[in-house]
């Protein structure tokens, strides 16, 4: 796949943590609406790549262009605005605020962007319906199962209608049946809003929900479309 028309393109990324090289010339590109799996063994640099792409961690060198703009040239404020409004995040564990109810958790990103409580919770509920967790609205995260909690987290990640959803091992803590349910609903919801999904996973059955995959090994990426 050529990077032409890509929403997010990274080229020749390098990142080291002290003596540990996490990225060593990695590349990446994704189109609007595309689901790209980032695969590879544990410790190969998948999460670091995701953190760089999402503007959470700056690479030591290399370029990341989002929507035509080089991320390194943005101010911190611009980058965090981007993360709040254009990007959504789902991680493996514990991202829900335990003191808030599920609907308050899902509404949180909208509240932080200044939306009124009533409006935010109304939008939150439509996303919870899509993820089939609307009946959990009044429960706290501690009172729901792992699979349900992950679906609430996906609803929260999508509530701002982000253009890119970053998911790092979103099913890593779930059994196959629950993992599959999360992937079904996550990819359906992302496709319905044309959000691009960067899906980090070491599991092939999860990666099979993607449109294509790249494999990261020792900090280098390989675009599997160019292999065959």
């Amino acid at each position, binding site marked *: 796949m050529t990077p032409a028309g890509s929403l997010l393109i990274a080229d020749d990324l390098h990142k080291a943590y002290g003596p540990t090289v996490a990225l060593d010339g990695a590349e990446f590109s994704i189109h609007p609406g595309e689901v790209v799996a980032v695969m590879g*063994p544990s410790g190969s640099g998948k999460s670091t790549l995701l953190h760089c792409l999402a503007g959470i961690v700056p690479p030591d060198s290399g370029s990341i262009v989002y929507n035509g703009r080089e991320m390194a040239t943005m101010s911190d404020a611009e980058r965090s605005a981007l993360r709040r409004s254009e990007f959504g995040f789902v991680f493996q564990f514990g991202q829900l605020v335990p003191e808030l109810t599920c609907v308050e958790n899902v509404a949180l990103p909208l509240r932080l962007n200044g939306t009124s409580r009533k409006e935010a919770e109304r939008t939150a509920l439509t996303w919870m319906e899509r993820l089939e967790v609307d009946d959990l609205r009044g429960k706290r995260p501690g009172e729901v199962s792992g699979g349900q909690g992950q679906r609430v987290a996906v609803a929260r990640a999508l509530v701002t209608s982000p253009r890119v959803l970053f998911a790092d091992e979103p099913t890593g803590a779930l059994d196959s049946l629950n993992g599959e349910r999360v992937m*079904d609903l996550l990819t359906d919801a992302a496709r319905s809003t044309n959000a691009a999904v960067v899906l980090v996973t070491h*599991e*092939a*059955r999860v*990666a*099979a*929900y*993607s449109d294509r*995959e790249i*494999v990261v*090994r020792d900090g280098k990426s*390989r675009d*599997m*479309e160019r*292999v*065959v």
Partner: protein
Amino acid sequence: MSIGHTLLGLLESGPRHGYDLKRTFDEKFGHDRPLHYGQVYSTMSRLLKNGLVEVDGIEAGGGPERKRYAITDAGVTDVERWLATPEAPEPYLQSTLYTKVVLALLTHRNAADILDTQRAEHLRMMRILTDRKRRGDLADQLICDHALFHLEADLRWLELTAARLDRLAEVVAR
């Protein structure tokens, strides 16, 4: 597994006699199932007929095992094509894939590429099955799941083998 391609690949490092081919095959790939002499001769005469090998010399006293075979250019191309083409993803592929990887290492080809090509082919199949499963009824789901779990096991093997290629190369070179 293709015995023809495997024997051809073994000839790439230099001409060999029939008995030598059998011995090397058994050592590297035969494990608990050594080749019969009959299989070697029928395979070699087919390769000869197809122009993939030629007779390079015959030892005195000669039955067929005394013939020395050399690979032709067409033979090298044939091995090349076989190694580069991924196997149709289906259960119990390991022996063919293992053979391809070992042969690639023996002939100094890129074994990692073979694993990656196969990996991509497996995942392509897994996408098709996942899609079918999402549209299908419970019966479709269960049938697809069975295939998906097998393909996943293969993929894990491919990944593990990729991570152990350097060690395998050392062992194979012995």
